């Protein structure tokens, strides 16, 4: 599995009780903020019968699966309650696959593998740009970003699958967000028509 930190959501994508669905390097992810503020980045499937966590519901610091209402705790991903057996403590092995998460510069970062402690240090005074999905492979998108002249922005890629990438960026001047959006949109069109 791919090492390294990637941005996979904006902090604003996670209002209370919402489960944000995204994907990184073919791994479907369910991203949600617990009542205590912790952002969880989980593999988007319940370990019981494979139902996507992202169609479940958030209750304070737990995520409840839509199928059998099993509850999983924020942080560890450990199963806390199985309604079919309310008097039994769920086995330790029953847990969501949880990836590390860091909120930085308005973006949520995660890594699927590797041991780097944290995502790259970012400029403090920036604002997140609108995410731009592109139906092109990561390599092509990275090449296009490197060649593009976009002063005042810092761009990152989220490789979604073999043919799909999301560009996430930070802008130094909030007043120019609209222009940056337009520039990214032109970049997307050029890439997809190539």
């Amino acid at each position, binding site marked *: 599995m791919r090492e390294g930190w990637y941005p996979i959501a904006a902090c604003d994508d996670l209002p209370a009780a919402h489960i944000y669905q995204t994907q990184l390097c073919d791994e479907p992810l369910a991203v949600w903020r617990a009542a205590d503020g912790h952002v969880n980045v989980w593999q988007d499937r319940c370990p019981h019968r494979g139902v996507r966590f992202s169609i479940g519901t958030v209750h304070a610091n737990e995520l409840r699966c839509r199928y*059998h209402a099993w509850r999983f705790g924020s942080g560890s991903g450990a199963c806390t309650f199985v309604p079919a057996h309310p008097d039994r403590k769920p086995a330790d092995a029953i847990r969501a696959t949880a990836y590390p998460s860091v909120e930085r510069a308005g973006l949520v970062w995660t890594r699927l593998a590797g041991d780097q402690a944290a995502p790259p240090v970012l400029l403090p005074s920036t604002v997140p740009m609108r995410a731009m999905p592109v139906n092109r492979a990561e390599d092509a998108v990275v090449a296009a970003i490197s060649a593009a002249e976009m002063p005042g922005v810092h761009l990152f890629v989220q490789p979604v699958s073999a043919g799909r990438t999301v560009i996430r960026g930070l802008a130094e001047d909030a007043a120019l967000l609209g222009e940056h959006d337009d520039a990214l949109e032109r970049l997307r069109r050029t890439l997809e028509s190539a």
Partner: protein
Amino acid sequence: MPGGALPEEFGERRSIKIVLANRDRPRENAISECEAAVDPIIWNDWHVVGDATELRSYRPLTTILLGIRLRISRDLDGAITVTREDHGPLLSDVRHGLVWACLGRPTQPIVAIPELDEADRCVVTAGAVGVHASAGRVVENFLDLGHLGHVHAGYLGEEAESAVAPYVVAPLPGGGIHASGCKVFQPVASPSAKSGFTVDYRYKVERPFTACLYKSAVSQPARFDVIYLFAQPVGEVETIVHALEIFVEDGVRPAELRAFQQFIFLQDKPILENQNPKRLPLGPRMEMPVLADKSSVAYRRWLVDLGVTWGTTSAQDEVVAG
């Protein structure tokens, strides 16, 4: 070619037709790509492919079974014919109000349903619903007791009563599994239920993609309403679900029974379409059952023992997937 002159059953003419495409080419030399991909258990089984009561002489139906396109037509005399669009060989039959097809050589007859012979039964086909899920996932959902109080809350179960009491799972003498002693509190067990009651459930799975449920009848709790589920495997992860309801007559209108069954199934559909992987995992590592999943565990083991691979993932796939 036989056909046409067989006894009537449920007001329909029953016919068995063997369609041979090309008599010059022996079957052994004409194994299609589809057949090669399908395990012999599923390939040689009978599958429901349509509802005979829905067929009109002026409007043939087309459907797909195990990746093979079929055409179902009814002539003005009522005789039903099923053919493969690729003109390959096929067996077909009309039984229990449903149209059946077998692409291979059947090793077992179409399932017998003795309750259909009881005079005071209301018999309804409850439609055909396409689901983007494997047939195994559909059958497993039908057997599942733990979801009733959540997915069907207020109807087939209640949040506060969603604990699953121990029940018994045993092999059927002729192959398959039988679950008994299941008890579920149901606020609205059927359209004729006036109040909630604890319903006795039994399940029988006689064929890989056929399951049936016996539940206490509302008007005569000592007898059972019977619901059959036939999962038509369209592709490995595409299924058409046919339901046949055989209820103890209690004045409920067939349209109500049908509507209720469809309402319930449409609560399951989004769950089924959000399971990952879509194929039923048969290896022990990928999904973690609890005691309440006894039927599901027995069903998966039985499919492994039979050698069913269609629409499933094996233990080996799971190792590769990590």
